């Protein structure tokens, strides 16, 4: 058995740039930052009705979604672009409004940054590019795993030197 194949953590989401473009009655485009590819996608949509939300403010998006989706048809499709945490947290809001994961098209996240859930204090540290990373909640130095929780939009982190305080691995860039 290949060693690499052993280390795959199946909860780590996979993304593909290929967007499935099936039939739908309503399509909704939500992005944290608008880029040309995404606005092209919006322009090209042949749905009977379409909308575009461009906002990084999750509270505002929640209000917009409640209004836009209140009378949406079952055949709705949602396209999401942003950081990994953004797309999954908006995904949680969509799920609560009745959108299934199958109806969400998540584009590859805009950067390699991760959000990390600290298992000791339950705080999430954003914009993590390297591991180990310092927890914004309790200040512990965290190992960053590939175990991902959609509900938190974050990866599991635990104190990297809990067994031996002096044993701190060299910093590596996350991919």
């Amino acid at each position, binding site marked *: 058995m290949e060693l690499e194949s052993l280390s795959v953590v199946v909860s780590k989401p996979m993304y593909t740039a290929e967007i499935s473009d099936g*039939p739908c*009655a309503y399509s909704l485009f939500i992005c944290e930052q608008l880029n040309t590819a995404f606005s092209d996608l919006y322009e090209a949509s042949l749905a009977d009705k379409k909308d575009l939300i461009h906002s990084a403010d999750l509270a505002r998006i929640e209000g917009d979604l409640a209004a836009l989706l209140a009378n949406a*048809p*079952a*055949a709705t499709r949602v396209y999401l672009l942003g950081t990994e945490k953004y797309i999954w947290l908006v995904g949680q809001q969509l799920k609560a*409004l*009745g959108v299934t*994961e*199958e109806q969400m098209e998540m584009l590859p996240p805009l950067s390699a940054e991760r959000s990390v859930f600290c298992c000791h204090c339950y705080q999430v540290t954003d914009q993590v590019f390297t591991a180990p990373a310092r927890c914004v909640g309790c200040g512990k130095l965290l190992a960053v795993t590939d175990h991902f929780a959609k509900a938190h939009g974050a990866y599991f982190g635990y104190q990297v030197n809990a067994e031996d305080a002096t044993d701190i691995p060299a910093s590596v860039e996350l991919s």
Partner: protein
Amino acid sequence: MSNQIKVEVASICQVAPTIREFTLEAIDDALYPFSPGAHVVVEMPNKKKVYKNAYSLLSDPTDTQRYRIAVRLQDASRGGSIYMHEQVKVGDQLLISPPSNLFSPLWHAKKHVMLAGGVGVTPFMSYIPEMIRRDADFELHYMYRSLQTGAYKHELSEQLGDKYFDYDSDRQTRCDVTALLSQQPLGTHIYICGPDSLIQAVEEAAQTLGLPASVIHSEEFAAPKPGMPFVAEIKSTGQQVDVSAEDSLLEALEASDISIPNLCRGGVCGQCVCTVVEGEIDHRDQYLSDEEKAAGNTIMPCVSRAAGERLVLDI
């Protein structure tokens, strides 16, 4: 299976021209409560073989005094329903499995749309009381042929009012599935119980409209498939073991004092694997890969059987 429940037929009534309803009451232990959409497997001891058919429970899930099932008389290829209609009398005892459920409503749905074809209305009979208790948004679309089926249509119509829609193909009223699906709001889940043609029609309409497959649910019964008797021969000793239609190969081997290591007895764990040197296999397990099944030289005797009359096992 040792966990079967002995029940007595408390009453029988004709609820449509080809459908009979049976009320079953516990004899020894109380009945289990069950969840909406659950079914039981009823065992019918006939002369030659035991029929095992799955029937949805149509009583209110909170009623643990009795279970109700409805049986449609099918053509001769399905012997069980003929047995239920012709042999079973009030006061008879039957064995049933505990309830299991592969057709549970998704309670987080914003709206539930139930599509019933004929006797396929039965699982929804247990959905409805719970949906009313939870004040859920739902509709029942009931398709039947009044010369044969259509059980409970009057009480349903009365009880559900504008949530109830019926289509009688013996009176030329039909359901436009595409139109029905296209009107549904986001968050609707669709449940279908009826003939394959209805399930297919709904799935195709959903695909054409762009509804996700994960909101379409149809009933699948996990009824044990009927088995034919066969003979297993033990290569090392030449011993012949008769496997009846009711017993698994593993049970028959055990009854002949041939012990095989085993754990799950459900075709999953892989412990009881045996080598087959002769005879075709009817594979029914989840353990062997497709390649292993195609190779035809290993069998999981806890669930799989001979496809013909004889198997030779290398034990």
